C-alpha cells in the first residue's frame, strides 16, 4: 500500500474540516437537546397513570427504535416534501437534525424512565407528605436523584450521536464525513482522507468524554460530607 503522507498532512492541517467539525458538533448538541426533551416527555408519559399516555409513549418507542435511523433521515428530507405536496420542505441540516433527535428521543425515553424508577418511591411520598406539589416533588426530590442514574448513559448516547451524524452524508449535510467523501471522490485518496476524518471524530469524542467526566464529577459522584461550616459554627 502506498500511503501518500503529503496528501494526508495537507488534508489534516487544511481548514476544510473546521466548519464541518463545528457542524457535526452543532447537530450533535441540538439533536441531543431535542432527544432529552422528548425523553423527559416520553418517560413521564410512560410512567403516567393515564393509559392513553402510556400507549403513546410505547408507540413512539416501538416505532422509532424499530425503523433504521437512515430510513428516518431520508424520510424527513426526501419523503416528507413529496408527502405534503412541498408544504413541508426542510433544509437537509434541519431535516437531518430532527430525524436524529426524534430517533434518539426514544432511547432517551428509556434512559430517563429507568432513572426515574430507580428512585425509591418513598422519596416522592415524603416530598408529597411535606406539601410539595407533584411538579415540585419531581423537580426538587426525584429528578436530582434520578440524574445520577441518567447522566452516565446519556454521556454515552452523546458520543454515539456524534458518530451517527455521519449518516447525514446521505442527504448531503456538510458534516465531517460527507466533507471527506467530497474530497476523496476528487483525489481518490480514500485511505488518507478517511484517516483524517477518523482523527477528527476521535478528537471530538475525546472532547465530549472530557465534558462527560466533568459533568459526572459534579452530579454523579456521591457527595461526601463537606465538613460543614454550620456544624463548626454551632456544633
Amino acid at each position, binding site marked *: 500500500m502506498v500511503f501518500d503522507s503529503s496528501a494526508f498532512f495537507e488534508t489534516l492541517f487544511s481548514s476544510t474540516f473546521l466548519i464541518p467539525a463545528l457542524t457535526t458538533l452543532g447537530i450533535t448538541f441540538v439533536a441531543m437537546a431535542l432527544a432529552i426533551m422528548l425523553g423527559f416527555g416520553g418517560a413521564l408519559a410512560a410512567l403516567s397513570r393515564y393509559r392513553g399516555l402510556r400507549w403513546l409513549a410505547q408507540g413512539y418507542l416501538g416505532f422509532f427504535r424499530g425503523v433504521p435511523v437512515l430510513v428516518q433521515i431520508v424520510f424527513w428530507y426526501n419523503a416528507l416534501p413529496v408527502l405534503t405536496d412541498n408544504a413541508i420542505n426542510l433544509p437537509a441540516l434541519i431535516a437531518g437534525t430532527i430525524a436524529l433527535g426524534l430517533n434518539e428521543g426514544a432511547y432517551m425515553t428509556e434512559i430517563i424512565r429507568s432513572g426515574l424508577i430507580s428512585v*425509591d418511591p*418513598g422519596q416522592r411520598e415524603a*416530598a408529597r407528605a411535606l406539601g410539595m406539589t407533584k411538579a415540585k416533588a419531581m423537580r426538587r426530590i426525584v429528578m436530582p436523584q434520578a440524574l445520577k442514574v441518567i447522566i452516565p448513559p446519556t454521556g454515552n448516547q452523546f458520543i454515539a450521536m456524534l458518530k451517527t451524524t455521519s449518516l447525514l452524508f446521505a442527504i448531503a449535510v456538510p458534516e465531517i464525513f460527507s466533507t471527506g467523501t467530497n474530497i476523496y471522490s476528487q483525489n481518490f485518496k480514500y485511505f488518507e482522507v478517511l484517516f483524517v476524518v477518523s482523527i477528527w471524530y476521535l478528537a471530538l469524542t475525546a472532547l465530549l468524554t472530557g465534558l462527560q467526566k466533568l459533568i459526572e464529577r459534579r452530579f454523579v459522584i456521591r457527595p461526601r460530607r*463537606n465538613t*460543614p461550616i454550620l456544624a463548626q459554627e454551632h456544633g
Partner: protein
Amino acid sequence: MPLVEINNVHKRFGELEVLKGVSLDVEAGEVVVLLGASGSGKTTLLRCINHLETIHDGEIKVAGELVGYTRGKDGKLREEKDAITSAKRARIGMVFQRFNLFAHLTVLENVTEAPVQVLRVPLAEARSRALDLLASVGLKDKAGYYPHELSGGQQQRVAIARALAMEPRLMLFDEPTSALDPELVGEVLETMRRLAASGMTMIVVTHEMSFAREVADRVIMMADGQVIEEGPPAQLFSAPSHPRTKAFLARIL
C-alpha cells in the same frame, strides 16, 4: 370541633376493600395509638388522612376542611386541585417506617427543603429554625451529614424534625420504630414522648405497647378495615372486650 373527623370511610384497592366504614374523631392535643394485626388497614387509614390515598366513600376532615376533595353542588365529593391539597398536606406531618429522608440532601437541607420550597420561608430563617429543631432531637452536630451516614434512630429523629419544621397541627406516625434495631427504639420513642407532652396532636401506628400505655390518651383497635374497639389504654389493655382485641393483645404483650 375535633381536629380530625373521619366519617364512614371506605377504601378499596381493586376488588379488595381495605377500609370498611371507619369512623374516628381525634381532638386537638390528643394522642391516639392505632393497633391492629398486619393488613388491618392502619397504614391505609393514615395515608387517607393526608390524601396520599384516595377514598371511595365517606369523608375525612382535618381542622374542619376536607383534604383532597371538594364537595360539589350535587353533594358528591370531587378531587381537588393538587396545589390546594398540597397546601393542606403541608400542615400534616408524616413520619414513615422507613424514614424516607431525602438521600441527596444533608440533614440540614432535609429540614429546610419544604419550609423554603413550600412555605417560602427565607433560607436564613429556615436554617436557624432547622438547627433549633435538630438540637431538640439531639442532632445539631449532624447538620452537615448525609442521611446514609446516620444510624436508623438518628435518621428517624431527623425525619421527625423535618416534619415539625412545617409547623404541623397534626402528626401521623406509621410504625416509626419498627425498622430500627432494638437499642435504637428508645431514642425515637423518647422524642415522640416529648412531642406528645408539648401538646401535639398525634395519630401513631405502633406495636410499642409501653408507648401506648404511657403516652396515648386513647387506643384504637382495628381489624379487617374496621375499628372494633377503642378506649383509654389502661382500660383497653387490662379489660379488652372484643375477642379479637384479646387475641391480639395476648400475642403482642
